[in-house]
Each structure stands twice: as C-alpha cells, then as structure tokens.
C-alpha cells in the first residue's frame, strides 16, 4: 500500500502545487539561474526555485524534504515503527555531485562524506533512525521506478513494514554539460511531437511511503493507492541508444503486468518515460503499442513540464499515476502540439487535461545501458 506522497518539484514544493501545475499545463523550464551556465548550450532547465542552493548536498536535501512530507502525508511518526522494519530505497544518478564538483576543484567542502550515490539514502535513514534495509538502485534514469519496485518487494517478502521509497536528483554543470555534449538536449522538451529535438533536464525529489497492508490497516491509515506489480528487463543491445523495437521496455511492462496479474485491457492510464528525444519516444510508442494495442489507453509525459529529473523521474511519475487514479483526470503533455506520425499508435493526452476514470495505471522508465523498469499502480479502495 502507498500511504503518503512527498514532492519537491520545479512546479513547487508539495503534492498540491505539483499536481495543480501539471493539470494547468504549466512548464517550469527556464534559463538556468542556479549556477554559471554561460558556456552551456542549450542552457534551459526546470530548476527547483523554492529550495535555496545553500545546502551543497542538494539531492540529499530534496530527498529529506520529500521523505518528511511523505511521512506527514501518511500521518506516520517514524518513531512509532519498529526501527528494524523501517527501510529506505532511494534512486539517484548524481547524489552528491555538487559537492563532488567543488571537492575535485580543491575547495574545502563540509560534508564531503555525502558525495557517493548512496549518500541521500543514508541521510534519510539516519534522520529517521532506520535499522531496516537501506539501498540505492542504480538504473540510471529508471532508478526512481526501481526504488519503488524494490520497496514493494521488501514489503511483500516481509523484509520491512514501512519503506521510504523514491528518488532525488539535482541540476549541476556536470550533468547539463554531459547531456549537451551527447547532443541529447533542446531548449524545450516536446515529448512525442513531430518537431521534438531532445530532452530538457530537471531536478527534484519524490518519495512515497510504501506500507505493509496490515500495518496501514491497524493504524487506520488513509490509502493513496497501491503497487500492484513490478517488472524490469534489459535491452542487451546498446549502451546509450534504446532498442528501436522497444523490446526491453515492452518486456518490463509485460513483466509488471504479469506480476500484478492484471490484463493490459484493465490498465486505464500509462505514464510514458517520454523524454522528448527522437529515439526514446519512437521506441516507447512501439513498446506501448505492442503491449496495449493501438490507441487503447490514455498516455502522457510530464517531462515537458518538469524536465527529465533522472533518478527522481520514475518516483514523480508513480505519484502522477496515483493522482490520475484518485482524481479521474489526466494532465496534458506539455510541449506536445503536433503528434509525430511515428507515435500515432499512442492515445496521447495533450492540449487540455482529460477527465478519465481508471482503476490501474502503468508507469514505465528506461535509461542508459539499456535498462527498463515498470510499475503497475492501483487506485485506493
């Protein structure tokens, strides 16, 4: 069961500004202001504006704020949970990279121990006194999805009662210059659009409370939804380019559906990875059409609104799915104006939000090194 959600997003801090911004079709993409970007081209990104850059462990700060919010949303005092049954699964692709940039430059840096990828999870675990499993999935841009999958597995196999699960990533010169040099970026993200040119980076943190059903029932917790199934698969074809046929992504979705014991026809919404790069979106169109058939299920991407938040993206999109199921409303795909003919098999929601009642949704993510991961999420009640 998912009993709480916490969000630090470029559209605002808190579940409500995030959701309202998505439904309104707002884009948080602007010229980069948080660090020197004059030599970066493109230099647009979706920054978190209401968390100052004073904490050099920015991803850790996002994770901690999102986890604190998620616990409050779940009305759960972590001290009331058996500490051995309290766990953290937090994806990231950059972790303490802002600290790393400064340390490598020879600056005296406080908190240099927070450089590694595992540091945001450790910071959250220490804050809440966890003694259960604490791990950081490293599936590149699918890390946030895999973190929630791992949390669901831990609860299902009796390894934890409460897991703080999600992802956090930050914008810094390291990552913006990197995606720029791969020629993967654009000034504007236009997922599935005929004129899409590339992705726009974003940052933030998203954490959910994954709670064992009996534990949640005993304390009469309000439910936000459930993780019904999880799946992962490798392309095993290329390190940076996705399999053009989308076979790995399709297998991950099919594995998650099989794990949930849910037929594709019962899925009422698909949150696509939808980065806005020519190859990713075409690959996903093939994969999603292969699993669900042509134009059978509403699809969107939120990366035109909040950018590609890398290791946090899958966690944001899982929360999006829970909101779509709870509110019966699919937010529009910001940046999409003219659907690419190559993506015509998808029933994309764009322009306006679409009222749509559904009981189950799929969130799919893919990343460097040919990783794919998917979740099946269920509506509360």
């Amino acid at each position, binding site marked *: 069961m998912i009993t709480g959600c916490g969000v630090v997003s470029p559209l605002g801090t808190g579940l409500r500004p995030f959701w309202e911004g998505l439904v309104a079709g707002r884009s948080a993409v602007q010229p980069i202001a948080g660090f020197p970007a004059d030599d970066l081209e493109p230099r647009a990104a979706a920054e978190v504006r209401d968390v100052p850059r004073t904490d050099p462990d920015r991803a850790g700060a996002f994770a901690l704020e999102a986890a604190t919010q998620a616990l409050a949303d779940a009305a759960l005092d972590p001290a009331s949970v058996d500490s051995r049954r309290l766990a953290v699964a937090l994806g990231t692709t950059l972790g303490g990279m802002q600290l790393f940039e400064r*340390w490598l430059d020879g600056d005296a840096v406080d908190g240099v*121990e927070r*450089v590694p990828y595992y540091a945001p999870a450790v910071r959250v675990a220490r804050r809440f006194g966890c003694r259960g*499993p604490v791990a950081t999935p490293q599936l590149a841009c699918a890390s946030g999805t895999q973190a929630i999958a791992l949390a669901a597995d831990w609860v299902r196999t009796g390894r934890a009662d409460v897991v703080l699960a999600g992802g956090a990533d930050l914008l810094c010169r390291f990552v913006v210059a990197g995606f720029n040099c791969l020629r993967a970026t654009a000034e504007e993200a236009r997922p599935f659009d005929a004129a899409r040119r590339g992705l726009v980076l974003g940052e933030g943190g998203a954490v959910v409370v994954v709670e064992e059903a009996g534990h949640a029932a005993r304390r009469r917790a309000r439910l936000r939804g459930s993780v019904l199934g999880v799946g992962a698969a490798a392309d095993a074809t290329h390190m940076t380019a996705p399999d053009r046929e989308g076979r790995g992504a399709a297998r991950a979705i099919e594995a998650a559906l099989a794990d949930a014991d849910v037929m594709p026809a019962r899925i009422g919404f698909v949150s696509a990875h939808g980065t806005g790069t020519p190859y990713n979106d075409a690959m996903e169109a093939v994969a999603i059409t292969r699993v669900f058939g042509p134009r059978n299920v509403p699809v969107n991407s939120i990366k035109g609104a909040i950018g590609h938040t890398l290791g946090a993206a899958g966690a944001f999109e899982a929360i999006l799915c829970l909101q779509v199921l709870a509110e019966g409303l699919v937010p529009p795909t910001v940046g999409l104006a003219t659907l690419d003919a190559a993506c015509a098999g998808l029933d994309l929601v764009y322009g306006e939000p679409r009222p749509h009642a559904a009981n189950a949704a799929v969130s799919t993510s893919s990343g460097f090194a*040919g990783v794919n991961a998917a979740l099946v999420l269920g509506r509360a009640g």
Partner: protein
Amino acid sequence: MSLAVAVTGAGAVIEGVQDSRRLPADSALVIGPDGSVPLGHLPEAVRARALRAERVTQLVLAAGGRALAAAGIDAAAAPETRAGIVVGTAFGCFLTNAAYQRRLAAEGAAGASPRLFAATVSNAAAGELAIAYRLAGPAVTVTAGGASGLVALGEAVEVLRAGRADVVVAGGADALGRALADWVAAAELAFGRPLAEAAAVLVLERPGRVRSELGRIAGHASGFEPDPAGPTAGEGLAGAIAAACADAGLSPREIAAVASATPPPLAPLEARALVATLEGRRPRPVMPFGGAFGATGPLGLLAALAEAEPGAPVLVLDVCPSGQVAALVAWAREAA
C-alpha cells in the same frame, strides 16, 4: 523457510597481494603487475568490449565471464530473456566521474567528453555484461556502500525466488584509483585496512535444473546502523543476522562458521550483534578478503564456499562505515 538457490559458477578478480588459493578452484584471476585486468580468458567479442570499457566494467566482465564459463553458459546468439543480472558496487563510476569532471572544470563545456559522460552511470558494467552475453532479463545495479555486494546477492536470490529469471549473474565490484583513495581519506571512512580493487561474481540458479554446484545461498537480509561507531551500535546487524537465519530456515544456534568482511574499526558493532544473536557462541571464523568495498562480501562468501565444511551453515557478514549492513547464510556442497 524460503528457497535456497544454487551457486553454479564463480569468478573473482583480485590483486596480486591477495591469496588466490583461498577461493574456489579455478575461480580466481589476478590483476597484472602493470595494473591490467586479466581478460585473456574471455571470448574474443567480449574481450573487445572489455578493452574499450571503463575499469569497473572490465572487472565485472572478467569475473562474470569466468563465472559464466564455469556454469557452462556461453554468450548466447539470441537474447536470453530468462537470464538476469544484479551488480553491487559501492562507488560505481566514481573514477569516470572524476576524469570527466576534471576536463569539464579545466576546459569549460567544450571539455565535456561524450565518451566519458556516457559511462558516468554505475550500471554501465551491468549493461555491458548484458550486451556481451545477451542477458536480457532484469538487469539491476544497487549500491549500499561497502555492503553492496552482499545486498546484490540477496536481491539476486529474490529475483530467482520470484520466478523473474532462471539464472542470475550477481556479485560485487569496485575499482580503485587515486581520486577514490583521496576521497576515502577526505571523508575519513574507517575501513581500517589497505584498500584494494576486486570483483567477485557468481552464477545463481534455481536448484533442480543444475548439473553441479559449489554451494547454496539459503538466506539473506540487510539493515542499517544509524550511528555505526556509537557505543550501542549493533542492533541493525543483529536484526539482519536474525532475519537471514530465519530466511534460511535455521536457528542462529546452527551457524557453524562466520566469514566477516566487517572493517576492523567496526568490530565492536559486529561483536555486539553476534553476542545478541549467537548467544555467546564463537563459531569458527573463515578468513575473508578485506578492503575491496562492494566486492568484499561476495569474496567472503567465495572463501567460505572454498574453506567451510560441506553442508555446514556459514554466516557471511559485511558492514559499511556509512551504516549499511548485510548478512547472508550459505553452505558449501560436498564434492559429487
């Protein structure tokens, strides 16, 4: 009690100063005096990939190739969708990050290298292994600091138990270099012994479909110590030990030997956890390999499979100075 999975192949890459005789027969490969990772045993196409790759990937391909060959698994022509990968690494692409960032800092955006940036993901090694051997099932990389390797083996056991794959290639690896050694010193991480680079990779399968096996992993668990150097630390590890034994369907009383990869400065934490769970008994120690970050735990398991009395349950432990802990219960099989 949950399913015990079979270890059907093993490969390890260690430094020359380590004692390769403590590992299972034919599993060990030794890094050359010039620092080169041994790749001569790999099929030519795999070796060509490895030669172009960053160092963690080289270590994983070298150890993984040896383990797969021992298990009788060749590089497939078609994607094998029932074969998965779980790699544990404490620092992953740290050295690649440093190389990429140094050029970016020195030359500005024009110094950003696409080749280096594409390898600044810790799952590069798992991805290369998947491509090289056409392993197209779940490919997962996980970091839990120094406990990463044991955590990865535990998650691999779960992939098999859940029926998501028939074979999983799993283990731990970390590369060592100047930037990482400098950072470990700056962060004052208490490993308490010389640092080393290594990889240890196992092939795990559901029992029943295998021809021969080195041993079995019967139970696993991980946990966390919020204050590992504190005077009362040990509760997280005690919880993991109890859970791993329960997972294996054993009482902690039945543990015959302990292979501890715990850094010496954290021995008090481990001692408190063992007193709490093994009730003052002191099972025979198996000497593991220390100081190799994510590879340390899996190397400890391999040493246990090589040295422990066949059939006798061994408890393998690892503790990270950052707080992550893991416990695994395994035993060696008698020679057929």
